[in-house]
């Protein structure tokens, strides 16, 4: 593939990761923080930003690790362990650096970073990128797009839930119950994007 077609492929992957193949609303990955932290727009914003950053960076790191180490040595089956180790180490490292050099950013993201280590959407994105055999550029687009997609989904959910705080919800549906129903409706809405793009 030449550069232009690579770029356009990456762009398609990027947009489709946000809309048609939203990692949260199409694959239902990263649901626990999605339900747990989506009570307020402010905290959702912090978590969403952290996810975008970590997802993009770890996709790249994992792509390199996979292509350079695992693939040549024929150790594909180790990718689960490899990826999760790399994600954990990366998150630790980033947390340390942010805490040291940008206390204000640490205030906003700091406590969400450790949460992200166990966010299955992050690991999921890395695994999808391997399964779909993305190039390096496409991986950038995919990581960034998936992160933004997740960010959009949690922001939308937080906005809805904030509006719901003063509504009278039947007792059995309060909390996670109504949240899951909303998530389902949002997923249905996102199906509307299918067909806009054929990005893989």
């Amino acid at each position: 593939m030449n550069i232009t077609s690579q770029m356009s492929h990456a762009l398609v992957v990027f947009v489709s990761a946000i809309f048609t193949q939203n990692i949260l609303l199409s694959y239902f990955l990263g649901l626990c923080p999605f339900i747990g932290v989506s009570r307020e727009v402010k905290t959702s914003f912090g978590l969403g930003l952290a996810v975008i950053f970590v997802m993009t960076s770890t996709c790249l790191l994992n792509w390199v690790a996979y292509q350079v180490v695992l693939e040549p040595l024929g150790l594909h089956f180790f990718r689960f362990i490899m990826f999760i180790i790399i994600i954990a180490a990366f998150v630790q490292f980033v947390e340390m650096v942010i805490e040291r050099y940008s206390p204000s950013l640490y205030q906003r993201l700091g406590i969400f970073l450790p949460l992200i280590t166990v966010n299955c959407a992050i690991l999921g994105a890395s695994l999808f990128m391997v399964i779909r055999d993305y190039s390096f550029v496409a991986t950038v687009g995919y990581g960034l797009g998936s992160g933004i997609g997740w960010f959009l989904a949690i922001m939308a959910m937080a906005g809805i839930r904030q509006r719901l705080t003063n509504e009278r919800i039947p007792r059995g549906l309060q909390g996670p119950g109504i949240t899951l129903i909303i998530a389902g409706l949002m997923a249905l809405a996102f199906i509307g994007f299918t067909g806009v793009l054929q990005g893989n």
Partner: protein
Amino acid sequence: MFLAIVIAVAVVSSIGAGLAAVLVVSEHFFANYGPCSITINNEREFTANGGKDLLSTLTTEKIFIPSACGGRGTCGLCKLKVLEGAGPLLPTEEPYLEQDERESNVRLACQVKVRNDLRIEIPQELLAVREYTCKCTDITNLTHDMKQFRLELVEPKSIDYIPGQYVQLLTPAYEKSSEEVYRAYSISSDPADKGVIELIIRLVPGGICTTYCFEYLKVGDEVKVNGPYGDFRLSDTYAPVVFIAGGSGMAPIKCMLHHMKNTGNTRKTVYYFGANEPWELCLVDLMRKFEKELPDFRFVPVVCELKDSAVQACEVGLVTEAVSRDLENAEECEAYLCGSPGMIDAAIAVLKELGTADDRIFYDKFE
């Protein structure tokens, strides 16, 4: 096959080890905030290497803040005031802090990181609690069932406490008890003399510790106490003070009176001392001396029945009756009660009837 497994394990392990090494090295660089000075209560200052949380930094300095969860931020016990240097409140602390605590800079020590110089406030009692080895140097009979024990501190040689606080006295195993027990006794001595504590102990029939003190403890014996504890103390307002205490409940009151004398406190003060019989009154001479030395202090002994009119001038009846008869400005007073739960509950009821607000009644129940 075997080779493949070895290679696979080796590769994954070495990458994991490499990442761990990178983290350790970068922690050394990034999480090292250099020496930070921590000032406690504007009195004590020490320097610690920054980077760890405040709770564990204090622990290495042998300052123990209570914590049930071991610093994971789930118990909310390690609260202390961080006046400077803590940065904004963390979302992990929010669930444990009330609005008024947030306003007065209360933080969770396990969540606050030491990144720069800090100014913190630790309740004095947490700072000062430790074990003291003492020598019993004097035992005075106050009444037929009350003695005053004078304990000279041997190691450490001095104690800082707030008048009204108590210590725990260690009763070693002896003939009538096979195990060590601790019992709490209020400090009664003059707080100006930091090298000595005095305890007023009333014999409880069958009590392990009091029996030991009355029958076994001799002048010259070694005694161990720890403390000081408790938040029964004189407020620093100007409101008139009412003390109500009977028997060994006199101990913290006596200590407070010494303190008032030492600090030239001019608050209007009255002390109702209740007893069943005239011979149960004790330290009356000392109280009369306080009446002369303090600007505005009145001592009112109250006995149930006055059989022998030759004894000191006292009120007759229950101490609560005397209070309701005698006390005029109950609404503006602060009341400090000390003694048996029955006496305290009765006194609180009377004071409320007279118009003293709930938050102006302080007590130390001897249970």
